């Protein structure tokens, strides 16, 4: 029996190979020299200025030296990691080793993990080389070993995220140049933001992050948002990389959908947590006031994201159909997360509905607080705004679902995910432009404004005429939704693609069972 090793599972094979290949390259020596030269140069400059500037205490020197070191290291991370990551997959493709690699037992996920570990190992090697010298600065006082370790920890987390972003860029690109061009603007933005913040508030004061956090601790809600956001970015980029490296007939869509769902739920929970205690009919946070309107604007942009799901491939990938036929219980529980057919539309509408439900929930909480309102509260005004808010909300909801249905419809016609999304959005942008043009040429006539509900909601003046237009817009969105769904279903049936079943009937002429060889 063939002996099987589990050690390759965590990407060990790739890690070993990456370490050997990277460390033997002349380029790696050059990077090390440049890194050491920049660090040494920065320290030397400081020592010169410190000598010229007169005596300061050894504690101050130690603090400033360590702060300079970490500032330079941070900048180096933003420069080096994108370069290492962006070439990680593209060099395999261009060097024609990719076919050999996926011909082994390694899965795309293991390859991504191995590549990431390879980048991190190289980066950590650079980072920890000066660690003994840094530790010695604690002898002068002013810098604690805990602060240094915490700084390293934060830099490692940053390296992890940057590395996974760079690998995502590499996995999604055919060429190295494109991968680098995609990831460096992001890195530059990150570097700019981080450096501006850290040099202004932390390092310029001779502080390290731990000292800063101890001196001026952020509210614990900050961590409640920052940690899930970081995890989302990290997991999202890793899932995305695996998605791009997996075949179209694999189950690669499922983790993406789970990520979408989890992200939505976490965001909603965090938002509810933050908003609920502040909801008050008289206060600044009134749901029918600033926050409600802000949410309506946000919801107008949400279809941009969800069209990715609604307009995705209408056929069930082979691997998903196989998993479904073998593990019925698990897959039935997560039925709406399975790609293909009507589920694409249902999941996108369900996700789109979650924020609306959330708004309604906050809104109902707010209504309850009316009982505690003082005597001078303008109830009539509140109720009038409440009616217009409800109407606007419903109109936006109907519009959003009709956009998603249009994207889904184009996918049933046979367009790819991106084309379907662009077509659906393009039609609605065209309608908005048409309405604007008509209004300009007909002295503000709003006869066609129902064709573009977001424009209508923006211009809503709550007159009986405009409320009537809301009804027209809702009717237009409903008919559009219904037509897209019905024609989409008819098209699917005509093509023999199941609408609700998780099946690939006949697997589109692919043979699953071996037929007899024709004579």
């Amino acid at each position: 029996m063939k002996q099987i090793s589990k050690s390759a599972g965590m990407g060990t094979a790739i890690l070993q190979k990456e370490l050997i290949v990277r460390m033997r390259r002349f380029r790696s020596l050059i990077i090390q020299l440049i890194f050491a030269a920049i660090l040494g140069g920065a320290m030397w400059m400081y020592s010169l200025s410190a000598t010229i500037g007169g005596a300061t205490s050894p504690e101050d020197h130690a603090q400033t030296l360590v702060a300079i070191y970490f500032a330079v290291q941070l900048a180096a991370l933003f420069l080096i990691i994108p370069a290492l990551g962006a070439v990680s997959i593209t060099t395999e493709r261009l060097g024609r080793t990719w076919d050999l690699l996926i011909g082994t037992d390694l899965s795309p996920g293991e390859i991504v993990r191995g590549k990431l570990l390879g980048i991190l190992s190289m980066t950590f090697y650079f980072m920890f080389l000066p660690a003994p010298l840094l530790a010695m600065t604690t002898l002068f006082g002013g810098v604690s070993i805990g602060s240094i370790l915490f700084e390293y920890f934060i830099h490692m987390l940053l390296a992890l995220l940057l590395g996974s972003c760079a690998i995502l860029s590499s996995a999604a690109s055919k060429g190295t140049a494109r991968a680098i061009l995609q990831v460096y603007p992001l890195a530059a933005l990150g570097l700019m933001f981080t450096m501006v913040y850290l040099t202004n508030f932390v390092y310029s004061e001779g502080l390290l992050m731990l000292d800063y956090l101890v001196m001026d601790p952020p509210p614990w809600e900050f961590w409640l948002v920052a940690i899930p956001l970081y995890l989302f970015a990290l997991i999202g980029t890793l899932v995305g990389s695996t998605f791009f490296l997996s075949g179209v007939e694999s189950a690669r869509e499922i983790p993406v959908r789970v990520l979408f769902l989890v992200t939505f739920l976490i965001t909603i929970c965090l938002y509810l947590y933050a908003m609920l205690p502040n909801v008050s009919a008289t206060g600044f946070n009134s749901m029918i006031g600033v926050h409600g309107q802000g949410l309506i604007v946000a919801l107008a942009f949400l279809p941009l994201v969800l069209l990715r799901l609604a307009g995705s491939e209408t056929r069930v990938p082979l691997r998903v159909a196989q998993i479904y036929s073998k593990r019925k219980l698990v897959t039935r529980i997560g039925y709406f997360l399975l790609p293909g057919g009507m589920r694409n539309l249902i999941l996108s509408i369900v996700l789109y509905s979650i924020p609306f439900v959330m708004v309604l929930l906050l809104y109902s909480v707010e209504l309850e607080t009316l009982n505690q309102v003082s005597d001078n509260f303008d109830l009539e005004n509140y109720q009038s705004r409440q009616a217009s808010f409800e109407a606007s909300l419903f109109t936006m909801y109907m519009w959003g679902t009709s956009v998603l249905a249009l994207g889904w419809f184009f996918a049933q016609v046979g367009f790819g995910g991106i084309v379907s999304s662009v077509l659906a959005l393009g039609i609605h942008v065209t309608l908005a432009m048409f309405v604007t043009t008509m209004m300009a040429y007909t002295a503000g006539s709003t006869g066609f404004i129902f064709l573009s509900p977001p424009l209508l909601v923006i211009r809503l003046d709550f007159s009986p005429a405009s409320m009537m237009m809301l009804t027209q817009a809702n009717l237009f969105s409903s008919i559009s939704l219904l037509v897209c769904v019905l024609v989409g279903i008819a098209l699917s049936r005509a093509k023999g693609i199941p609408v609700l079943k998780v099946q690939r009937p006949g697997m589109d002429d692919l043979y699953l069972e071996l037929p007899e060889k024709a004579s």
Partner: protein
Amino acid sequence: MSLVSTPIIQVRDLTMRFAKKEAVSAISFDVPRGVIHGFIGPNGAGKTTTIRILASLLVPTSGGAWIDGANVVTEPEEVRRRLGYMPDYVGVYEGLSVQEYLDFFALAHRLAPARRRASVADVIELTDLGNLLETEVHVLSKGMRQRLCLAQTLLHEPDLLILDEPASGLDPRARIEFRGLLTELRRLGKTVFLSSHILSELSSICDSVSIIEKGVLLADGSIEEIQMRLRGATVAYEVTLLEESTEVESILREIPQVGSVLLEGRKLRFDWDGEDALIHQVWGALAARKIAFTGVRREEDDLESLFMSLTSGEVQ
């Protein structure tokens, strides 16, 4: 049907359509176990596309293919475990030595440490790479790279090797050595499926061939079988007479299995439409009339002439 008698490659109505082009059009063929099977066609015929589908690297548009009973679409992991694939261009990792390169792929195939060491040692011995273990792979000659890649495909002990144009770009010596390696693999019970457009390479080692052009399979089977299908049972003989003779033509026409007869000086050429065992009738008839001959040559179609008669030379 026992597993041993099941063909190791089974292809049924395999079709691959790219945007506007049908690269492979409903081809069907089988490859039995333990043979060297040549996959022949001009450039752009659809060879590499078919091979990539068989290696589970491409999903076909329709039809299907099975490797040792595993479906290339629904069981790609199983397919990859059962075959070793060598692409037309062998990419190598700059900076790795031959030993490290093989160790890496053995680990990637999840071979346990003991098995890994044994397997790497076995393939090094088989491919005669022992004196190059410390050499970095990117400085190897093309021939040695091909050997290394072949070694890599053998690490997980697959029964089937799929090699895409393994001899292209090799010098004559490397080609001969590579041919010997393939023959050795057949002796070890491996099935080798290789594509090439260098027919002289294939004719000497292949047990069977498939000929493809413009995505359409024109013929498959052993060279003799294809010849039989193309020309029927007719075989041409060329006889060199000792002296010129005018009566020889009439003598041969008396034998019903003899077809057309052509006499040019001492060269006699005739078609034989009967069983091979009955050809002695011709020699008997000539001997009875005291017509002596100094040489006989049976004209058989070689792979090149079969290929030329089957293909039109057009590419997609």
